[in-house]
């Protein structure tokens, strides 16, 4: 094989790798533009018109201030919500120690984000139910919506 062909193939291969790199980057172009499409936080009105699926339900105006146990062994217990996350479970370290045989040691976690509180299941045995539906990911908890953990039901109040 002549030197010329070898040289051409040599540069050709370098070109080919860079074509791969650049096409990967261009495939990601949409994803890399953080400023416009993939802004974190609420979509703009224009984006919402174009893609209605991006719009979350508007956040509740009222902010929850208290956590109240409405059912179960600890019925009547109330807790003031500060800005720190709350651990629910039977473990001694939990913020609210549930004396409930059906709750796991570290059952669920209630945390504030923005103006809302979210609940996240921590891999409990019996699961956490937000108004009757089992949690599979962190979901916002509105005041007055019952959250069931084992035999205990808690609610956020204003």
């Amino acid at each position, binding site marked *: 094989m002549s030197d010329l062909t070898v040289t051409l193939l040599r540069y050709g291969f370098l070109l080919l790798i*860079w074509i*791969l790199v650049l096409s990967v980057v261009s495939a990601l172009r949409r*994803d890399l533009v953080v400023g416009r499409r*993939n802004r974190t936080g609420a979509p703009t009105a224009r984006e919402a018109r174009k893609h209605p699926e991006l719009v979350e339900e508007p956040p509740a105006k009222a902010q929850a201030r208290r956590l109240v146990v409405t059912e179960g062994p600890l019925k009547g217990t109330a807790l003031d919500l500060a800005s720190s996350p709350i651990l629910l479970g039977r473990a001694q370290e939990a913020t609210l120690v549930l004396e409930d045989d059906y709750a796991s040691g570290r059952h669920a976690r209630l945390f504030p984000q923005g103006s809302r509180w979210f609940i996240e299941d921590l*891999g409990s045995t*019996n699961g956490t139910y937000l108004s009757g539906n089992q949690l*599979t990911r*962190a979901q916002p908890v509105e005041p007055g919506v019952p959250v069931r953990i084992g035999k205990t039901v808690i609610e956020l109040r204003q």
Partner: protein
Amino acid sequence: MSEVFTVPKSRRNAEALLLLVALTVAIGANWLVGLDKDNPFDSAFWLQGGTLAALALIFHLLLRFRAKYADPVILPIVIALNGIGLAMIYRLDLALPAEAQPVAPSQFLWTTVAMAASIATLLVIRDHRILRRFTYISLIVSAVLLMLPLTPLGVEINGARIWINVGVGTFQPGEVAKITLAIFFAGYLSTNRDLILLAGKKLGPLQLPRFRDLAPMVAAWLVSIGVLIFQRDLGSSILFFGLFMAMIYVATSRVSWVLIGLAMIAVGGYVALQLFSHVALRIDSWINAFEPEVFNRNPGGSGQVVQGLFGLANGGLVGTGLGQGRPDLVTYANSDMIITALGEELGLIGLFAIVLLYILLISRGFRAALGTRDGFGKLLACGLSFTIALQCFVVIGGVTRLIPLTGLTTPFMSAGGSSLLANWIIVALLLLISETARRPAVKGPVRETFTDGKQNRNTPATGSTREVSA
């Protein structure tokens, strides 16, 4: 943990196109290195190219059906990296004397096995959140895997006792342990994050953790020191500790953990330097690499690194061309030093493309972590991408003499089946996590999901309640 809004779009067609380019790179590289042979298009060439393309196609089709919204660029990048690695190993085989045992066929076999394992992972796991149930089991599995080389099964190669004999060949259980450890850390930290975050004294700007929360950190440190002492493997030791430090930082966003971790590394490193001759030799051959007596010292000389550097210098900007250089002069050119071998033949331009491919792969892993909604998935994706990143840094930094050379594998490229297997399984996990990250969220009440979950399995006989005592 902010959520990122994206318009859902499956992008599988983009993946198909990218796969085509990636396969061209992989098979083209294999063709170029065989050009000097009498018949570059022999049956081995067609078998290898065909199998790689077929497996890539199966993988792609599986993603179309099972993980429609998975990240479109992860698979093409990995196929390209693996293909370039295979080609370079084959090229180094051609330079071997005739009677030597070739490495490429076994590496090719391992690629097939690893891709099959990755496909199986996708099929079996389906949803990464299931792995959270195995938090403590993975800890036990990791411990067993790390202990295995110390049992009579273990084999010592080049002074490091990190392999086990599995009949047909050797296997490095530590490579799989990095996945199980990442699962354990992700499960543990996503559950205990708040405890670690909130408890403890404040000392100036630093919030110091309580001692009992520090315990897992100390345990991770002891494990990595144990690996260093008993298996004489500096690389894995750095990898495991780095993994834990990164994950605890991601989980708590506390700088104090990083500072504590760095202090522990400094202490461990200083003690290791005083106690172990091989660590001291490594440092010496890093600092005084170009001294003739250090260069020629055996073992523990700097000959390998310096010859790698000579190779890089010989390659220059555009490289000598695949199959035209002499990377075979460097010892372990097909495993530890594969980056310098590629740098010699593809030059700085080609090496930068490869490094960019790694960076893109790692950034996609972190992107999946950003997008997914569950804390466990976020931590797992971060940890797994970080292991790839740290491995690249330790290897590429080592061969370019930025840091002392330690024996870690270059992900997807180095000759070595266990590393290939582990990294392909990591790819499957990252794809699964990116699927959950990019899949459009279900609006309204969610009525799901794990039909084979614990509740059903443990249903009490009364049947009136589906709950069990935890």
